[in-house]
């Protein structure tokens, strides 16, 4: 197979959407991932594609076992989500999605930090477009916030790369240690992508605002590219062990509070990526295999769960648990398929999460890291509690609120069925899955001790849920998170300033007002762009783009300016 960047296959696919008639677009969305899968499966380990870029020697492709595992699962996820969105997406959203996936592929095959950064930024911009394509004014607002958070993260990453180049003279992307300003900056840039708290709030803010299909695409690539770069760049860094455990617990606690299913599942991305980040920090071969295996399984089962949530939203017009209940008889297949995803993420034996998650926990146990092991087990309790028990009970059982549902397209169910089959296949027969891992796997998941531990843990978690079901019931509310710093704080400060300085009824004078005015004018093209990208398939969320409030843009411009100033000082 030629050593072509896999990204190019997706970029060509996006271009084809512009050249081919609309009726061929579905074939492009399914064909491109299959071509990419064939490409990554046959790309030999050790293959490279060196090039020169502005005088720098770069390596556009560097294929090894680690990048292959991510490349294979990225192509699979692209196919599954493409099938799911076959009847749902417009051309603009499809093009953004293909370039987004291509750039994520570019990241996992990048052999140097400059190539990595280039693909990292394309990924940020195109994924923001996928969010904006959700088609509501909330999508536009959340997409913009997402973009600026990721541009700020990318700016810090670029600063790190440049300082690294200046001090070591090397752009090679290899394992690093936290012994310089450069590597700290690179780690912070990666941490934004992997949604490590406190840099994680963009995920629950933005992902639920994308379209039904858009969210499924988003869940697969951004955070997992973050896990990949951490596994490549910072294996064995102790800080990551603790950040990972904190993430795993943070995500489940917020998920217990959440009411909207896609927001709840977004917090579970934070939690599950926590398992991977902790495993990367542990750094042994078993732990790194565990991180990659869990990333792989997570992409498939989280895709399935978000497909299920999307099927509820599509059919019922809402995905708030407080407005659902009793859907089991009206949506039996969606329930069954969602449950397969729920059992997978919860690590129930015979499902994919069990054979992947237990690897990381076993790695902690073998290193006598009792607190880490217990923390990850507690996160498993929270996962089973808030997805398998809470979402299933309050959406499909519980009080029947008589919500009318419309049938979902067969392509959505087919994608869910295929994702469910893969999850069960990995759980029942993990050998081919383990063969994809970066190191030879010396781990047997189905031992008496492991199965016994998990069954005990989950059975009594279910009992705990039954006993406290009234307390655990969701409430209609917004949970504040660290995004308050850029969503709430500027408004609070502006209000305080206005109260002090400006008489009632008069506009605030000075540069703030000027910036607001300029920003609101600058957003008109975005509103127009959104109209072109917007998806009209969601009955609950009318296809209408309002202008994004200017104070948000102003505050985010400030963040980027401070980041750029930081680079200037460092250089």
């Amino acid at each position, binding site marked *: 197979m030629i050593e072509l960047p896999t990204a190019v296959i997706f970029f060509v696919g996006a271009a084809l959407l512009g050249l081919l008639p609309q009726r061929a677009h579905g074939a492009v969305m399914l064909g491109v991932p299959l071509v990419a899968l064939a490409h990554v499966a046959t790309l030999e380990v050790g293959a490279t594609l060196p090039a020169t870029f502005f005088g720098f020697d770069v390596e556009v492709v560097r294929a090894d076992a680690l990048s292959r595992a991510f490349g294979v699962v990225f192509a699979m996820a692209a196919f599954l989500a493409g099938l799911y969105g076959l009847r749902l997406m417009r051309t603009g959203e499809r093009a953004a999605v293909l370039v987004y996936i291509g750039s994520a592929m570019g990241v996992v095959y990048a052999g140097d930090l400059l190539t990595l950064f280039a693909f990292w930024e394309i990924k940020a911009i195109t994924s923001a477009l996928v969010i904006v394509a959700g088609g509501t004014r909330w999508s536009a607002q959340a997409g913009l916030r997402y973009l600026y958070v990721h541009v700020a993260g990318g700016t810090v990453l670029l600063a790190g790369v440049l300082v690294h180049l200046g001090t070591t003279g090397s752009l090679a992307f290899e394992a690093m240690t936290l012994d310089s300003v450069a590597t700290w900056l690179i780690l912070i840039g990666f941490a934004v992508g992997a949604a490590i708290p406190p840099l994680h709030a963009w995920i629950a803010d933005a992902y639920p605002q994308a379209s039904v299909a858009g969210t499924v695409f988003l869940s697969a690539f951004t955070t997992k590219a973050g896990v990949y770069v951490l596994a490549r760049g910072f294996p064995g860094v102790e800080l990551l062990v603790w950040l990972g455990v904190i993430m795993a617990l943070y995500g*489940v*606690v*917020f998920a*217990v*509070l959440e009411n909207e299913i896609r927001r709840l599942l977004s917090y579970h991305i934070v939690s599950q990526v926590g398992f991977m980040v902790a495993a990367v920090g542990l750094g042994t071969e078993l732990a790194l295999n565990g991180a990659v295996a869990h990333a792989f399984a997570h992409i498939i089962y989280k895709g399935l769960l978000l497909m299920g949530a999307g099927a509820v939203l599509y059919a019922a017009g809402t995905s708030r648990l407080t407005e659902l209940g009793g859907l089991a008889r009206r949506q039996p297949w969606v329930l069954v398929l969602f449950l397969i995803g729920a059992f997978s993420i919860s690590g129930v034996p015979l499902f994919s999460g069990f054979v992947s998650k237990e690897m990381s926990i076993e790695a902690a*146990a073998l290193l006598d890291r*009792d607190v880490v*092991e*217990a923390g990850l*087990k*507690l996160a498993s*309790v*929270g996962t089973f*509690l808030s997805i398998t028990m809470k979402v299933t009970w309050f959406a499909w059982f519980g009080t029947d609120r008589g919500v009318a549902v419309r049938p979902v397209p067969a392509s959505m169910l087919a994608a869910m069925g295929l994702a469910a089959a893969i999850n069960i296949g990995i759980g029942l027969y993990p050998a081919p899955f383990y063969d994809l891992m970066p190191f030879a796997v010396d781990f047997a998941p189905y031992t*008496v*001790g492991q*199965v*016994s*531990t*998990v*069954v*005990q*843990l*989950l*059975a*009594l*978690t*279910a*009992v*705990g*849920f*039954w*006993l*406290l*079901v009234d*307390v*655990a019931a969701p*409430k*209609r*509310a*917004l*949970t*504040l*998170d660290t995004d308050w710093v850029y*969503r*709430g704080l500027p*408004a*609070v400060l502006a*209000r305080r300033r206005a109260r002090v300085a400006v008489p009632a009824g008069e506009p605030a004078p000075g540069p703030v007002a000027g910036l607001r005015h300029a920003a609101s004018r600058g957003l008109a093209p975005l509103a127009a762009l959104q109209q072109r990208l917007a998806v009209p398939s969601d009955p609950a969320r009318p296809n209408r783009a309002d202008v994004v*409030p200017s*104070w948000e843009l102003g505050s985010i411009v400030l963040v980027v300016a401070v980041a750029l100033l930081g680079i200037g000082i460092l250089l």
Partner: protein
Amino acid sequence: MSRAWIAALVLLAIAVAVDVARGVPYLFPGFWAAFGLAGAALLIGLAKGVLKGLIQRPEDHYEALRRD
């Protein structure tokens, strides 16, 4: 129905509770069952008992902040 489920799940946990002396110390057979029950109560208590009052706001919180 829920009582029958609880009984079935407890019986299942008892049936599989075997002692494996490795990892986090096994203080007694069924340690992980107790861990699951206590963990579920802890997480629900932390979220609904403590955090709910501290960080939950009406759904239109940010819009309301902007309107003011």
